[in-house]
Each structure stands twice: as structure tokens, then as C-alpha cells.
């Protein structure tokens, strides 16, 4: 690999120099100048590009507690569907490991004919696949995130903190089906327990049919190696399911014949349901259809009446977004928004909507319908379905996971915008 790399680099360098030489010759022919020094960027910046010195894009927010560290993506500034890797959210329950890719491997074992360990070199030899897919923490936009009560760790109520633990990236890696073909699945195999290399050896499980259908061990994120916080050098990626299934810093895949009752999945993510007499719902898996207006959104201010584009993101863990409706009158009337290409399954879909603000107080919101015909519910519908008390958001006693209620933003007369989900 090494000799190969230096060979390729040598080639690129040669090509670049040749290109520059041609440019320099042209310039001197036109201007008569004899200076043949290479124009352009400062030295030693060619390998990995940097932001322009004056570019100051919004950065991530952070909260830290004894149980979690969380980074929030600045969604209000997003256009299109791809989250820059540098702005990708993170939620971690324990120490982030530092792993040397040269000595890294993960193991596939359990109900297989041949337990196998795979190195990074092995992964790069195996059949590859890449998918643009959303990834969303199963607590994203849940009731607590709409409250700033001044307690430690309460955050500004903006789209960055209400909805900012989600992303959409191009993930590249090896399909689990290819890995499992090497190992050979036994007849009884039906579940996969994934284990990570973090301080808690985090584990979580997925059904084998899902694993074979569309899951991968990912080692590339938007064409680059995974970020440290995203599981470098390799992670499981499970499209459409709550992000906890996509175990980072993958250590092993253990094939079993039943779901294993890992703590996070069977305890921490089992949530009481008022409509089920407070029995706890567990193994929810899929993110239902959801959308949010990213701009204009809470915390921003409209300075004058007039035209503003309403733009936002819609997605569904079940498939593609079929349509997004937008209301600019507090939900009285709805009009279809434009969906921007590409519209991919289990991926963020960008929607846009022309709007002229009259200067009057109003509330704007969006509603996603997916290709299964399922419609994003309003808060009232969700509360009714889950038997939740209407104001159960300060100290929620029942389920707040996989929260997909329609998100209303109120525009006040002075143009300031606020979150009125629980108003």
C-alpha cells in the first residue's frame, strides 16, 4: 500500500507542477513578466483544504453532564442536505477511544461457520458501497429540548438545540452482507449484537434481516475517514433506525438467535407509555416521518416585512419523502413545498417554499408525508396517540423518544421568532 501511495502522490505532484508551469509561461507571455514563481495558495496547504481565513461559519454547541457529552449542529445555516463532517452532532456516554487504524480490527463471531477478524486493509479490499442517509439521535427534538428553565445544561431554544442531534452524510464502507458471506451465517442466526470500543464497550442490537438488507461497516464519511467522534476508524451504520443502533468504534459483531437485552436498548431506551397503562415500549427501531423548518427559525429575527424563503429538512426512516406541506397561518391552511433533488430514501430531503411576511404575527410549520403514506403528527395527535398529558414536557413521565411532532415557529410582530411547540 505504501509504495502505491507514494507512487500516486508522485504522479499528482508531477501533474500539478506541469499545470503550473504552463500557467506561468502563459502569464509571462501576456505580461512580459519574467517571474515564474507558482501563484496561488501558501505552501503546504495542498493536501487538506482549510476554510478561508475570514469564513466564520456557525459552529456546534455543546452540553456536558456526568452521563453525556453532546454536540449540536447549527441547522439554521444549512442549505442542501449534506452535513459537513466538522459540524456533525455527537452524543457520547463515555470516553472516546483513540484507535490506531494500522492495528485496528473488529471480529465477526457467534453463529457463524468461521469467526473472522477484519483489518482496515481487509475492509478496503471487500466490495464497497456508499449511501447518503440521515442519522438521528433517538432523543432529537424531544420535549426537554424545547425548554430553557435555567437549569444546568438547558440550552437556547433554537433549531440547533431542538433538532441539532441529526445529520445527513455520505457513508462509505462494506455491506454487512459481504462480511457475513465471508464468515458464513449459521441457520439459526437472526440477530446481531454490535459492540463498540468506547469506555463503556457500548452494545446494542439489530435484527439480522435489517443487517443483511442495507447496513454497512462504514469507514468513510463524506469521502474522508470518519471523524474521531464518529467512530474512527470504522463504525456500524444502520439506515433509518435511531442513531444508537449505529455503534461507533466497532469492536465486534456477535451473531445470535435472539435479541440481546443490552442496557441502553432494553433499559435506557424503554419508555413508559401512558396509553399503555405505563407499560414500557422498547425496541422502537425506526424514525417515523418528520420535518422541520430550519430557516426562518427560533432565535432568528426578520428585520422587515417582505419576501423570505422558508427552507427546511424532511426525512423518514421508512423510505422516501413524498411531500412536505407548509403552513404560514398557524396550521389553518397548508400548501405543498418544493422538494429539491435529490430525494433519497432514509435521507434528509431539502424543501423550499416562497413566503412573503406581511409584518403580522403568525406561526409557520411544516408537515412531512412519506412514501408509505404516513403523515407527521401534530403535538395534539402525538399526545393523544401516546396518552400524554398536554403539558408533559418539563418533567416528562412518558415516552419522548422518536419524537416527530410538527414543529411550529412563531413570528412576532417585531420579527423575532420563537419555539411555540408547548406554548
Amino acid at each position, binding site marked *: 500500500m505504501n509504495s502505491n501511495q507514494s507512487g500516486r502522490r508522485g504522479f499528482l505532484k508531477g501533474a500539478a507542477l506541469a499545470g503550473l508551469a504552463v500557467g506561468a509561461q502563459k502569464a509571462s507571455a501576456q505580461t512580459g513578466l519574467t517571474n515564474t514563481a507558482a501563484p496561488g495558495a501558501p505552501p503546504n496547504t495542498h493536501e487538506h483544504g482549510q476554510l478561508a481565513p475570514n469564513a466564520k461559519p456557525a459552529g456546534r454547541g455543546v452540553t456536558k453532564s456526568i452521563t453525556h457529552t453532546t454536540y449540536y449542529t447549527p441547522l439554521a445555516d444549512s442549505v442542501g442536505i449534506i452535513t459537513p463532517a466538522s459540524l456533525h452532532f455527537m452524543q457520547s456516554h463515555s470516553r472516546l477511544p483513540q484507535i490506531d487504524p494500522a492495528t485496528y480490527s473488529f*471480529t465477526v463471531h457467534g453463529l457463524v461457520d468461521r469467526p473472522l477478524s477484519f483489518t482496515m486493509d481487509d475492509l478496503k*479490499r*471487500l466490495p464497497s458501497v456508499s449511501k447518503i442517509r440521515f442519522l438521528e439521535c433517538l432523543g432529537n427534538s424531544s420535549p426537554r429540548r424545547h425548554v430553557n428553565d435555567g437549569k444546568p445544561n438547558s440550552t437556547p431554544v433554537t433549531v440547533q438545540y431542538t433538532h441539532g442531534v441529526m445529520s445527513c452524510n455520505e457513508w462509505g464502507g462494506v455491506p454487512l452482507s459481504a462480511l457475513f458471506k*465471508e464468515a458464513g451465517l449459521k441457520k439459526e442466526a437472526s440477530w446481531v449484537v454490535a459492540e463498540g470500543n468506547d469506555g463503556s464497550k457500548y452494545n446494542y442490537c439489530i435484527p439480522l*434481516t435489517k443487517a443483511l438488507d442495507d447496513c454497512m461497516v462504514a469507514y468513510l464519511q463524506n469521502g474522508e475517514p470518519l471523524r474521531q467522534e464518529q467512530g474512527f476508524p470504522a463504525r456500524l451504520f444502520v439506515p433509518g433506525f435511531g442513531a444508537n443502533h449505529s455503534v461507533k468504534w466497532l469492536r*465486534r459483531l456477535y451473531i445470535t438467535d435472539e435479541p440481546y437485552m443490552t442496557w441502553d436498548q432494553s433499559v435506557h431506551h424503554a419508555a413508559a407509555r401512558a396509553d399503555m397503562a405505563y407499560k414500557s415500549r422498547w425496541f422502537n427501531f425506526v424514525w417515523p416521518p418528520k420535518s422541520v423548518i430550519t430557516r426562518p427559525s427560533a432565535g432568528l429575527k426578520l428585520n422587515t416585512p417582505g419576501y423570505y424563503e422558508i427552507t427546511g429538512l424532511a426525512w423518514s426512516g*421508512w423510505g422516501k419523502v413524498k411531500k412536505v406541506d407548509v403552513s404560514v397561518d398557524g396550521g389553518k391552511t397548508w400548501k405543498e413545498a418544493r422538494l429539491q433533488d435529490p430525494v433519497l430514501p432514509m435521507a434528509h430531503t431539502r424543501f423550499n417554499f416562497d413566503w412573503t411576511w406581511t409584518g403580522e404575527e403568525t406561526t409557520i410549520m411544516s408537515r412531512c408525508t412519506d412514501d408509505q403514506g404516513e403523515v407527521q403528527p401534530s403535538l395534539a395527535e402525538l399526545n393523544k*396517540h401516546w396518552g400524554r398529558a398536554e403539558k408533559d414536557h418539563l418533567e416528562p413521565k412518558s415516552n419522548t423518544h422518536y419524537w416527530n411532532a410538527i414543529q411550529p415557529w412563531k413570528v412576532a410582530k417585531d420579527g423575532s421568532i420563537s419555539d411555540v411547540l408547548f406554548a
Partner: protein
Amino acid sequence: MSYSHRFLVPGFLLPLMTVGAFLLVAPGVGFAQRSNIGRPASEEDIRNLGVIISPGGKGLPQGKGTAKEGGELYAKQCVACHGKTGEGGVADQLVMGKPGAPRKGMYSDLDRHPIGFWAYSTTVFDYINRAMPANRGGTLKPDEVYAVVAYLLYMEGIIKETDVMDQDTLGKVQMPNRPNFLPERVVWPPNPKKPSWY
């Protein structure tokens, strides 16, 4: 780099190879072939990865412990974060019941941490074994994990103080809250699928 199912053949040899090539790409042969990528993991390699415990207790290591031993370990290694008797401190509450008197009733989302909420005693072993004490996960020996699990189960009123927890007994502990999880049997894909916010 080489893939066992891909090769280059000079053109003039192709007619000669047609029969063989046909066999190679015939259904169930060509692409389904393994590439022999990946290093076989020995039993020792897998042992070194540590245990993953099934709900019924498959994978539990040898060893044993009682609540009494567990109480001593708890006082040294857990008390700082989880409180004197599991009532919670900087970290989660671990106990809501009392010895001999398990907590009755449902658990709301505000109190779903204590062991009495958990559906499987084996999850308590699996989690503490891999993750606790926080930031020093994986440092407890099997006897110590059995003991501290026994202590927490005893404090919750689920087992007796003298019960020995080991490879055979731990998986058989009936957790009182087990009937309160839905769906009773975990299935994929969910049936019926809709509405998906179910």
C-alpha cells in the same frame, strides 16, 4: 489486490475457458464465492474480547458472589456516584425497593433507572461488567460483578441476602417488572407496521 472471483485472461484463451467460466458464474457459484479475506479468530481471540450475556444467561463467566460481599464492594467502588444504598447521587438512582419488599407499581420515564425496572437480571451483569465503575469499565473480576449484582438485586427486594449468584442462578432470577415491556416478543419488521409512532 486480488479477488478470487475476478481474473484477467488473454483473449485467445477465452474459447477454451468458456466451459469453466460458465461453471464459475453459474447460479450459487461465481459471486457467492468467498474471498478468504479476514483472519480466522481463534477461541482465545474471542475469549479476550470479553463476554456478551444473553437474556437467559448464556455467556455468563465462571464465578459467584453474594449480596454481603457485594455490599462491601459497593461501599468502596460505587457509593461515590450512586449514593450510600443506591438512592442516587451525582449518577443515577439504582434502587427504589427495599430488601424483602420489592417496589410495586409502574415506572414512569422519570424513574426508569433502578434495577427493579429492568427486565433481565442478566442485563445488570452485562452492563456493570462492561461499563462500571464509570471510566473504569471492564476492571471488575467476575466474582466482584456477581457480588455487586447480587447486592443490587437484594436491595431491590428481588433475591435473598444469602442467595448465591453464579452462572446457573443469575439467569433464573425472575424480574418483577418483566411483564411490563411491550411488545412482549421483539419482532422485525414490526407487525402491524402502522402507525409507526406506535
